[in-house]
């Protein structure tokens, strides 16, 4: 089977490459149709990376995207569609920021403060997702609906809590939680690019390894995958589907709780304010799908996403709307799956041809023998 695995690798690489090339072609057509010079646009995007601080920024953003995508992927593995990562990470970041900035924290040792902050984030994210999980297993409410609703409820709740007489203080024109004092944040890696590298990239890596380990080396992960693949088979083999569903949802929310942590613990402001990044939960859905819910696949997908996004501002120097990048991202998601599907079918055809050839050879030999 050596030749076959070689082909499999070749086919595996072919799909993403085809998708990228295809996306490039569509973008060129779009640019030409709207009277822009594609070469200028692409060289402007490429030129953006000559600034090392842009590259560092993109890596930092990759960290955030990765956490969000893993949170979504945990749900997907269990056939749960957690659209609510967005609300989960925002409310978790708000509460964690409020706790981290609280006055009593200053007297605690640095490590304890950081662990406490992370713990609060994980807990709040898990609880918020747990509502949806609980409604799903006890009342059969589709998690798609409940997480959509919980996203909006989280937005309202954050607006309510992020006011000066509650969890926030007035900072100039902006309301934010009390900034974390010295020692409450995690020191960054200074790699001499002007923009420091988020040290929580290590946390993201740890989450990735834990996700891989959980799925491939634990009974829990096996049960999740089994339930995701066939619920009836899982029930027959004694897996409590309800329990697994609830656990997967809470776990997904717990990881979602970490999404805001790089910005909070590594970022400059060290607080949750109206400027806090929103919408990462939705990006995470696309990235998880692009990375096929695989711990390593998601690394590439989030890097691709983030590097594309960070080149968008450069487009404006050549008078191309920066939304070009968004279009490109969407097209890539679509084309990658289409390409995988075509490659899969091509693989089946090739395999069938192989088998047919071998059968023909055996049949011919038998004939000769006879």
């Amino acid at each position, binding site marked *: 089977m050596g030749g076959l695995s070689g082909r499999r690798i070749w086919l595996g690489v072919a799909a993403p490459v085809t998708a990228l090339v295809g996306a490039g072609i569509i973008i060129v057509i*779009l640019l030409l149709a*709207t009277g822009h010079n594609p070469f200028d646009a692409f060289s402007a995007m490429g030129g953006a990376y000559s600034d090392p601080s842009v590259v560092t920024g993109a890596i930092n953003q990759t960290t955030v995207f990765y956490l969000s995508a893993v949170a979504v992927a945990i749900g997907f593995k269990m056939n749960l*569609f957690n*659209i609510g990562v967005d609300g989960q990470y925002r409310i978790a970041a708000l509460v964690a920021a409020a706790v981290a900035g609280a006055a009593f924290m200053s007297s605690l040792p640095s490590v304890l403060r950081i662990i406490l902050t992370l713990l609060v984030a994980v807990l709040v994210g898990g609880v918020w997702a747990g509502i949806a999980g609980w*409604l799903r297993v006890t*009342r*059969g*409410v*589709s998690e*798609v*609906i*409940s997480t*959509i*609703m*919980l*996203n*909006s*409820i989280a*937005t*309202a*709740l954050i*607006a*309510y809590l992020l*006011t000066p007489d509650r969890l926030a203080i007035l900072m100039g024109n902006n309301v934010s939680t009390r900034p974390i004092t010295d020692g409450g944040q995690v020191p960054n890696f200074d790699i001499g690019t002007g923009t420091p590298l988020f040290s929580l990239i290590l946390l993201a890596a740890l989450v990735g390894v834990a996700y891989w380990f959980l799925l491939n080396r634990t009974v829990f992960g096996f049960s999740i995958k089994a339930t995701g693949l066939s619920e009836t088979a899982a029930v027959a083999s004694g897996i409590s589907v309800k329990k697994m569903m609830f656990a997967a949802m809470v776990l997904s929310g717990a990881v979602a709780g970490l999404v805001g942590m790089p910005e909070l613990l590594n970022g400059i402001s060290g607080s949750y304010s109206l400027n806090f990044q929103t919408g990462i939960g*939705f990006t995470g*859905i*696309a990235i998880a*799908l692009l990375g096929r819910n695989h711990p390593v696949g998601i690394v590439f997908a989030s890097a691709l996403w983030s590097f594309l996004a960070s080149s968008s501002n450069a487009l404006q120097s050549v008078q191309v*709307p920066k*939304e*070009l*990048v*968004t*279009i490109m*991202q*969407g*097209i890539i*998601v*679509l084309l990658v*799956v*289409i390409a995988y*599907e*075509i490659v899969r079918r091509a693989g089946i055809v090739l395999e069938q041809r192989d088998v047919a050839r071998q059968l023909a050879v055996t049949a011919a030999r038998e004939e000769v023998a006879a």
Partner: protein
Amino acid sequence: MTTIEMARTRRDVPLGRRRRMPAWGWLLVVLVGLAVVSAIRLFSDASNLTSAGAIEAAIAAAVPIALAGLSGLWSERAGVVNIGLEGMMILGTFGAGWAGYQWGPWAGAFFGIVCGALGGLLHGLATITFGVDHIISGVAINIVAPGITLFLSELLFTNAPGGGQRQSPPVSDVFKITINGLTDWLGTIESKDWFFLSDLAGIVRGMTTQLSALSLLAAILIAASGYVLWRTRFGLRLRSCGEAPYAAESLGVNVIRYKYAAVTISGALAGLAGAFLVVGLKFQDGQTRGLGFIGLAAMIFGNWRPGGLAIGAGLFGYTDGVRLYDSTSTAMHAVVLLLAVALVIVAALQLRRGNRMVALSGLIIAALAAWWYFSIDQVPRQLVVAAPYTITLLVMGLASQRLRMPKADGLIYRKGEH
């Protein structure tokens, strides 16, 4: 066995586990519900619960949700999950803005429909022809649609009169329907502040004052969808593609063509939902605010049926409309009490069915809501926004779940592979 005999024997078989409620039963439910609302309005002096203005706002809020839900219904009934309808709605807003400011609102609505339908066709191409996972395709469309609309809006609207990088020039409104003699008479009754009658008058007046022609069109489309999907050959075949595509195929139904028809109609309806937001206003970035997802939720809430989704959209639109119209927020305060009463009723119904735990949790939440009502004078401004979502979630959690989606919904169909 003759046909007559067959008909007779079939009648003896019970139609299902659940008895269907007759029409007068529904009427009774509505009347009792209105009486409860009326009592609460009088008790808490919140005239906006049933005032004509609030109802107008509620209709305006409910229509795009209902249209989005209807969009989801068409495609899911043919077995294609359409999470991308939010994106198709965005395409609709752009089409409506672009054509609307140049050639008037109806051209806008038409182009909104066309743009949405194009989005639907793209979804069809990906899911039906290429066999892509429906969720992935939908998510991709939700990313591409805002990207492409903003890209085009920067190119087309920046130098247009009254336009900008992220918004189109204003679009005029379609005609509005007001039944003059009736509304005056109803207005008099409404102002008397009577129990029940004034509320009824307010609601009817809200529905007959300044009713957008597009709202009327939406109502017609909901009814027509119900008729076409459940009472015509085309609808039966379309639904068979969502329930058992291979069985349909074996009976000679061209499944692929029906699925394409369904997603195109779905896209067109989503486009109309987007156009509804633009007409009388303008295209703006982020205008849909996730309404497509809410529409999807309304459809699931309504058990993949047009009547059910209309109720879901109405419930959502009502709370949202009252919230928007009610500047003093006394009405939203009253809604908290209304919620408590409704929960008690739900708890009683659940207790009769023997669901003790559900009844108990309903009562606990009702008690909390009642306590909250009496302990505050006003619902905090920021929390009012969450009301429609919270109520939908509570209803979903406490009402009985007898939801059944089309059997082959979301499954990838390949011709002749079964």
